[in-house]
């Protein structure tokens, strides 16, 4: 396969521009009355064709094959290339105005040359630092060291004007003058000035001939009304040709100098804006509608520019996008693909003597029947589109080894699945296809965390790898089960979420018992096919505990202990004896004690059950565990029912009274604080002003009041309430959310302070000026269940809005940081000598991470799980 070894940049010489041109463009017109391209015009057929069916008159190819060909415009007078103007200034300053030699002291020349040669030998490239030093040194002398001519100061005026400041006044340097000087710079001098003489000459920075890009670069579009609309570049080229023509005519007619100069200036303007329409110092060229034209520089620049939009990221075929929805019955490795999509996306399959019969069947079924086929590619490269084939039988019979058919995507194929923003590598993972009815992609809920997906309208993308190599790599490296451990922290990123956790708690908490029928139903949903263990209760009828059922799905021999989310952080942990059953103990695959909740079963939980299974068994075992556990938990929670209502946050009257008392006391204390502040009795905290001290004390007081109210609610609401189960187990929400619903919403803040702005010295017009009471500064006494009064509601909206703005700002700033990090680090990889190097081969680390351990293979950052190994060895027989 051909490979591009390197790209060498250089300036285009006028001769090369002429040589690569297929025609000189002289007329500013594009099409004649019949709509045909005018010869020697900007749409000349020789420049390539963009109309389907037409042939290019240079290469004879049709639209797809013709690469397009350059033309050129001979400029009547030379013109400065804007982008080089600053460099031209530096050059003019450092060369003699008479002999055009570098004004470097003769004895310095060999010194610099030696340095530059050395750099050249080392890197094969000009050293910009040396060139800068040369230009700086050569810019100083006011008399040429060679011809002793007096030098004048060169003044540069943005964007393209140069003057020489003589005694008698400033004299304009025309591009012709400049080009004349640059032309005479000796090769050896320009080399020292930082020009690679193998590819560039200084005078080429002044244009005498302008390349005209092929029409494919600036296609005209025909609007629905039939009106042809030209590309911005064509517009600009028309302007250039027009002015160029007028300038030539005027020069030839011997028009007055002033007119010629004006036209020349205009030509300079058009060419400047043709290259870059955002140059400072001149107004941008505009379209008739007033929109600024998008010329060459604008086409390359920025996020929507050629580089970032078309070169660093490309549009691809064999991809699909649609809304996602959950399917708890899918494996984490699977993705549900709508039948309609499966009939459009294809996989190329080579016909061999072994599969020819199957392939014939696919061809026979054609593009409309599902496991069918859309195209046949013959060995000569010809494609047969089966949509337009009447009798597929002939094609099926004609099929032979060596043909390639593009068959429909079908169940079992491997595809890549992605959700934007792709912030980490788990944002694109490989899934196995499961073709399904309806029109959404379906995925297991356990893979929501790595994609950061939910189902409120999220869409995802799907790509079908087309090569054997790509499919193999997808399956081995990118399959979801291989991505369970996150390289960020060496723990699982996939795992149970939300109701799975509530359900796991319901299943494993003390007192959960199931009859034989219930047990069997649960285990059937998990796909459990073994014998039932002995029931833990035999009388009056056999019953199995939830812990037993959970244990049945654990791999044999699993050992693990951890503290659950519901743990109350007792001063002395009672371990297995914990009153709240929050010490999880698993021995030999048996859950002996503790409830399973977020810590044991949740996503992104290092040292959870799933983590131990991945590390001590395998990725496949972990997948099996999740795939059997999850449907079981869904069955359980569906049968038992799990919801939250007003009851969950309604407190008994006594508790409501206690909360009222707490808030009343806070209010009184607040008033006392205000009095103390007003009377100047407050002691200032060092480093803070009196106002800040007061505000801090007030905030502290109010947050204590809210916490107190929340604590009352917390005592009142027990684990019998589903809302509490959700917060305690870590399934969703936290104690604060509950407190705000049940007891008191608390202080609303803007920029971390109590709300203080709005009107002069007050927040709303119905407060007194200077009112510092909690009510006037955004304290919300009500709870969400009680409801907010209008003032509280208003403050709450203020605080809420800040949250929204914060999120929006955060995504953009962190996105930019991420982009910079990626750009700086993306080339770095581990080499075969164990060093970490960038693409230039420079060593960044001698050993990756000092110990050479891959975080994704580590055990939560540790190279080896010593305790597990020692325990294993010690438990073996001597």
């Amino acid at each position, binding site marked *: 396969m051909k490979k591009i070894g*390197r790209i*060498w*940049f250089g300036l285009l010489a006028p001769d090369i521009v002429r040589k690569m041109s297929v025609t000189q463009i002289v007329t500013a017109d594009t099409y004649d009355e019949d709509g045909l391209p005018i010869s020697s015009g900007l749409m000349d057929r020789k420049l390539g064709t963009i109309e389907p069916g037409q042939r290019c008159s240079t290469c004879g190819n049709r639209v797809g094959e013709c690469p397009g060909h350059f033309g050129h415009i001979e400029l009547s007078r030379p013109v400065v290339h804007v982008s080089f103007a600053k460099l031209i200034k530096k050059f003019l300053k450092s060369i003699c105005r008479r002999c055009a030699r570098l004004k470097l002291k003769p004895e310095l020349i060999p010194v610099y040359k030696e340095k530059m040669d050395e750099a050249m030998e080392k890197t094969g490239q000009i050293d910009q630092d040396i060139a800068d030093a040369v230009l700086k040194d050569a810019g100083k002398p006011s008399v040429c060291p060679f011809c002793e001519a007096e030098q004048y100061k060169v003044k540069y005026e943005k964007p393209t004007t140069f003057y020489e400041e003589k005694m008698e006044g400033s004299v304009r340097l025309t591009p012709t003058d400049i080009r004349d000087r640059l032309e005479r710079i000796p090769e050896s001098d320009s080399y020292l000035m930082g020009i*690679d003489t193998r590819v560039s000459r200084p005078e080429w920075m002044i244009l005498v001939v302008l390349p005209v890009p092929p029409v494919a670069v600036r296609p005209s579009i025909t609007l629905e009304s039939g009106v042809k609309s030209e590309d911005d570049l064509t517009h600009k080229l028309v302007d250039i040709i027009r002015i160029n023509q007028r300038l030539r005519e005027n020069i030839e007619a011997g028009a007055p100098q002033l007119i010629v100069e004006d036209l020349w200036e205009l030509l300079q303007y058009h060419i400047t804006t043709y290259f870059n329409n955002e140059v400072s110092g001149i107004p941008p060229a505009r379209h008739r509608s007033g929109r600024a034209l998008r010329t060459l520089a604008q086409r390359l620049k920025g996020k929507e520019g050629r580089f970032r939009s078309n070169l660093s990221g490309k549009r691809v075929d064999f991809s699909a996008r649609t809304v996602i929805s959950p399917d708890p019955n899918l494996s984490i490795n699977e993705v549900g693909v709508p039948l309609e999509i499966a009939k459009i996306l294809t996989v190329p399959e080579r016909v061999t003597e072994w599969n020819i019969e199957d392939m014939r069947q696919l061809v026979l079924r054609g593009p409309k029947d599902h496991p069918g086929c859309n195209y046949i590619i013959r060995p000569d490269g010809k494609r047969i589109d089966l949509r337009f084939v009447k009798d597929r039988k002939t094609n099926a019979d004609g099929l032979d080894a060596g043909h390639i058919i593009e068959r429909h995507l079908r169940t079992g194929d491997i595809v890549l699945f992605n959700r934007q923003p792709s912030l980490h590598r788990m944002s694109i993972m490989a899934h196995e296809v499961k073709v399904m009815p309806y029109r959404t992609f379906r995925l297991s809920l356990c893979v929501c965390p790595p994609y950061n997906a939910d189902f409120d309208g999220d869409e995802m993308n799907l790509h079908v790898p087309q090569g054997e190599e790509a499919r193999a790599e997808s399956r081995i490296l990118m399959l979801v089960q291989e991505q369970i451990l996150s390289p960020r922290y060496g723990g699982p990123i996939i795992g149970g979420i939300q109701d799975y956790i509530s359900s796991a708690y319901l299943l494993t908490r003390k007192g959960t018992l199931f009859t034989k029928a219930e047990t069997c139903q649960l285990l059937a949903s998990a796909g459990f096919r073994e014998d039932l263990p002995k029931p833990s209760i035999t009388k009056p009828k056999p019953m199995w505990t939830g812990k037993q059922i959970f244990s049945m799905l654990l791999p044999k021999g699993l050992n693990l202990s951890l503290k659950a989310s519901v743990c109350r952080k007792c001063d002395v942990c009672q371990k297995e004896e914990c009153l709240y059953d929050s010490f999880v103990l698993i021995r030999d695959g048996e859950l002996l004690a503790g409830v399973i909740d977020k810590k044991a079963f949740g996503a992104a939980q290092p040292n959870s059950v799933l983590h131990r299974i991945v590390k001590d068994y395998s990725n496949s075992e972990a997948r099996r565990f999740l795939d059997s556990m999850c449907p079981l938990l869904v069955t359980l929670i569906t049968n038992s029912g799990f919801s939250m209502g007003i009851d969950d946050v309604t407190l008994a009257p006594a508790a409501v009274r206690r909360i009222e008392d707490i808030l009343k006391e806070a209010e009184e204390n607040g008033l006392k604080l205000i009095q103390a502040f007003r009377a100047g009795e407050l002691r200032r905290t060092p480093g803070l002003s009196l106002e800040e001290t007061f505000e801090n004390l007030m905030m502290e007081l109010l947050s204590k009041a809210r916490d107190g109210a929340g604590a009352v609610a917390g005592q009142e609401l027990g684990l019998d309430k589903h809302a509490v189960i959700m917060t305690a187990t870590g399934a969703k929400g936290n104690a604060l959310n509950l407190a705000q619903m049940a007891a008191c919403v608390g202080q609303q803040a803007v920029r971390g302070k109590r709300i203080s702005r709005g009107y002069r010295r007050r927040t709303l017009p119905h407060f007194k000026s200077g009112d510092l009471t909690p009510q006037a500064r955004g304290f919300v006494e009500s709870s969400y269940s009680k409801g907010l009064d209008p003032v509280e509601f208003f403050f709450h909206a203020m605080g809420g809005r800040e949250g929204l703005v914060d999120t929006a700002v955060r995504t953009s700033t962190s996105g930019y940081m*991420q982009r910079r990090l990626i750009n700086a*680090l993306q080339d770095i990889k581990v080499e075969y000598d164990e060093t970490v190097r960038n693409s230039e081969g*420079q060593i960044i*680390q001698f050993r990756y991470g000092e110990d050479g351990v891959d975080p994704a293979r580590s055990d939560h950052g540790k190279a080896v799980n010593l305790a597990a190994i020692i325990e294993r060895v010690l438990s073996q027989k001597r």
Partner: protein
Amino acid sequence: MSSQFVTPEEIEKKLQKQLKTLPPLLIEDLRGELLSRKITNTQLTRIIKEVVKAYHGSLVEPGEAVGAVAAQSIGEPGTQMTLKTFHYAGVTELYVTLGLPRLIEIVDARRNPSTPTMRVYLDEEHRQNEGKVMKLVQQIEQTKVERVSQSVAIDLAEGGIVIELHPELMKDKKVTSEMIQEKLAELKVGDIEGDDERIVIIPGLREGEEVIPMAKLQKVLKKVRDALIKGLAGVKRVIVTKEKGEIFLDTEGTNLRGVLRTKGVDNTRSLSNHIHEIAETLGIEAARSIIILEAEDVLAEQGLDVDIRHIMLVADLMTNTGEIRQIGRHGISGQQSSVLSRAAFEVTVKHLIHASIRGEQDPLLGITENVIVGQQMPLGTGSIDLLMMPPKPPKEK
């Protein structure tokens, strides 16, 4: 039975043999685990064998895109961080930038971080002694003329600058009028005259000048206001904290060089959070360490779990040339050798123009470049060429 168990010496002997195969930290952990248990000789051998095997199994593979993974691992949690500036843990009076802004500051290697601070530990003599600590604080905290005077202003009647001293503040800071005059004299601001309440400074006239120009007075005024009477320049405030029976100082503003020179300071532990300052005073290796420490702290404070190896890689990349380079256009990204990579990052046109005149060559060794030209990138499975000679199909009979 007990005679069967290995002695600590035997364990040590076995561990010493693994010095070349296992990293020191792992050996240390292993030593701790082994010494706390009763093990037989065969078990010991088996454990070490298993550990070595597990260690080899956890090594990175050649070709692994550790850079991209590190960037993602630090960038991705950025979306979950706060934008706000919060208090320093424990010390309520000291504000320190945290969260995303601080993380950006670190990878930017900003020369002027928004909240430079130092944590100054004290030597054994001072650690417990509050009286001695207060003396040290006086030495460290900067006191400027402005801080101890009621006003510092130009007085045209006097034809110079007049300082109205604030006796109470002076007593507080243990500053005398003589000290101030002495310091001002060192600055050569002019003729100085004064008593305990007032100091007058008359700048000298230059040749040809009849009156002192206003511009010069303004300049001298600024000089006088900012004149450092005592303490270390830049250390605006010192906060004394006691934790676990040890007294240490937190400062607002930094002057690490000064602090490390101060007697009574434990200069083996004291640190500044200013990356460039650390590099200038303690060297580039220390700068690497502080980048790691600071980034880890920021992430940990936000409750985000990021493996230290990712942070190390970023820190190493920022410091491997011997100078601190920021992550971005003015540092690493701007110094990349690939034209296409630079052009695709920021300031596209400038890089292309530059490349043309310098005749730059892009050897297409990096990732972006190869994506741009549509070739396989030299990373991961793309970094190796694997050729296979398929067995010839058996001839049909």
